[in-house]
């Protein structure tokens, strides 16, 4: 025992280690003078070690096993005791005595804590930013090396995907929606160059904006403006789409090689209505006429005002036969409807079917010629002009 004490006293002189000696009943038999700074009170011979080291509760049998096994040790790391951090190591001395050694690691631990604190706070900040991005109404995604490496919840919801790994499977390549010729997100970022651009995805219109982050990542936001965009495309008097919207739509259909039928509609003898009832009544008739037609077409059909009392109806993804039936029903509906102030009136219809070589101009020209024929035939009828 005396030798052990000598060795320990040498070690203790460096003020880094303190000790308690315990017997196999886990009672204190001796301790160094500096131990009080860790356990908070003076230790007496015969004290229950668990009173001072509750850290050992639950491991009593393991510690008792040390007395019969010289090779076994019990180690606890980074224990916060009073104002200190210590490693506690319990080792065999003989079958009656075990050494409980306290190694003061406070300085190192506090340095590590500063780093850990900084790291954890950075991660919390990252989480907060992600939460903010997830709560945006816009679709948000971040790219790096031409890969999307973050998408927010709105993005996943809109494209009906569960996580970022679903992107390749669904073949969602945003830059291709903007321009088929673009080859990368870097190219998209360069093209946008801090400006906004309208992009159509499915049937929705978005404003796309790109922000470069430290030249290594790009943050893109897609703000859905379908409703607003639609309102901007509407004729202020009648509420029908503007001619420009028809042109955009038919050009997309031609580019995508989809089927379509174009119908030019003209209200018969509208000049007489204006002359007899005045222009105010004429305006009301135009609004009622628009409302009546829109109630009798599909959501995807586009009804636009060409000018005056002339309108264009674009029927998408349909056959000529179905289109003719639909237009005939529309003609009958108009014929039988009683308009405010004026009562009955009719309309004439000219129809063209999109062919492989058509452009928007040729389609419209043919439908317009067909309308001319319908007027010649006596109005209130439908004429189809082949390509």
């Amino acid at each position, binding site marked *: 025992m005396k030798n052990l004490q000598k060795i320990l006293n040498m070690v203790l002189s460096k003020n880094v280690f303190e000790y308690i000696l315990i017997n196999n009943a886990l009672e204190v038999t001796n301790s160094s003078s500096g131990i009080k700074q860790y356990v908070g009170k003076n230790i007496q011979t015969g004290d229950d070690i668990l009173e001072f080291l509750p*850290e050992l*509760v*639950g491991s009593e049998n393991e510690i008792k096993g040390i007395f019969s096994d010289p090779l076994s040790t019990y180690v*606890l790391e*980074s*224990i916060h005791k009073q104002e200190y951090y210590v490693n506690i190591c319990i080792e065999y001395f003989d079958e009656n005595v075990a050494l409980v050694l306290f190694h003061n690691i406070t300085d190192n631990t506090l340095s590590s804590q500063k780093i*850990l604190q900084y790291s*954890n706070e950075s991660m919390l900040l990252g989480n907060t930013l992600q939460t903010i991005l997830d709560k945006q109404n816009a679709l948000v995604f971040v790219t790096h090396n031409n890969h999307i490496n973050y998408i927010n919840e709105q993005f996943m919801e809109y494209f009906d995907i569960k996580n970022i790994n679903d992107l390749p499977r669904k073949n969602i390549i945003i830059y291709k929606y903007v321009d088929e010729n673009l080859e990368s997100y870097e190219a998209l970022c360069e093209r946008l160059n801090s400006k906004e651009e309208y992009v159509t995805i499915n049937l929705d219109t978005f404003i796309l904006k790109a922000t470069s982050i430290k030249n290594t990542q790009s943050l893109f936001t897609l703000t859905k403006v379908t409703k607003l965009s639609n309102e901007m495309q509407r004729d202020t008097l009648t509420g029908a789409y503007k001619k420009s919207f028809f042109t955009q739509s038919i050009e997309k259909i031609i580019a995508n090689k989809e089927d379509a039928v174009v119908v030019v509609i003209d209200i018969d003898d509208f000049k007489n209505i204006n002359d007899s009832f005045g222009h105010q009544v004429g305006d009301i008739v135009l609004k009622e006429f628009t409302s009546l037609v829109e109630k009798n077409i599909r959501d995807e059909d586009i009804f636009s005002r060409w000018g005056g009392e002339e309108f264009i109806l674009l029927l998408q993804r349909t056959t000529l036969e179905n289109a003719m039936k639909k237009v005939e029903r529309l003609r009958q509906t108009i014929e039988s409807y009683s308009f405010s102030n004026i009562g009955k009136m009719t309309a004439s219809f000219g129809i063209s079917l999109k062919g492989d070589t058509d452009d928007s101009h040729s389609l419209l020209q043919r439908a317009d010629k067909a309308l001319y024929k319908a007027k010649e035939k006596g109005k209130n009828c439908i004429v189809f002009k082949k390509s």
Partner: protein
Amino acid sequence: MIRKKILLLGDFSVGKTSLVRRYVDGSFDDKYLTTIGVKISKKLFNIKGEDHEMIIWDVEGSTPSKKISLGYYRGASGAILVGDITRKETIEGLAAHKEVFLSENPDAKFVIAYNKADMLSDMARERITLDSDIFLTSAKNDMNVERLFMKLMEKMLK
């Protein structure tokens, strides 16, 4: 006296230290200070005339790059698995904490705390699915903290 060692386990910054402080000292501090290593607290109480001492190990939170030392798990009779209800990933991570804890202590008991409930609206709180072992807690508002610890003690003494 019956002594039981319990652990508070969970990801970093979910409020483990705050729960212990609320339960043991009745206090709360909003400031976040990362726990490193482990700090042990004691709580004495009497059940049916018998003294009990709960030895509470407030263990440092795990992070993606730093896992908890398995040495801390030895001899534990129970654990409180703590997640931050405002951080989905910390709730999802509880399953992994439970698995490691039970692999080291197969007979031990556990309860779960969805902490920081004070940050949720009443409506959001109602939407959370709980059971008899899962508590919505707030160390800040002292919500269900006592019930949480007592429930674990009851389970350990059964």
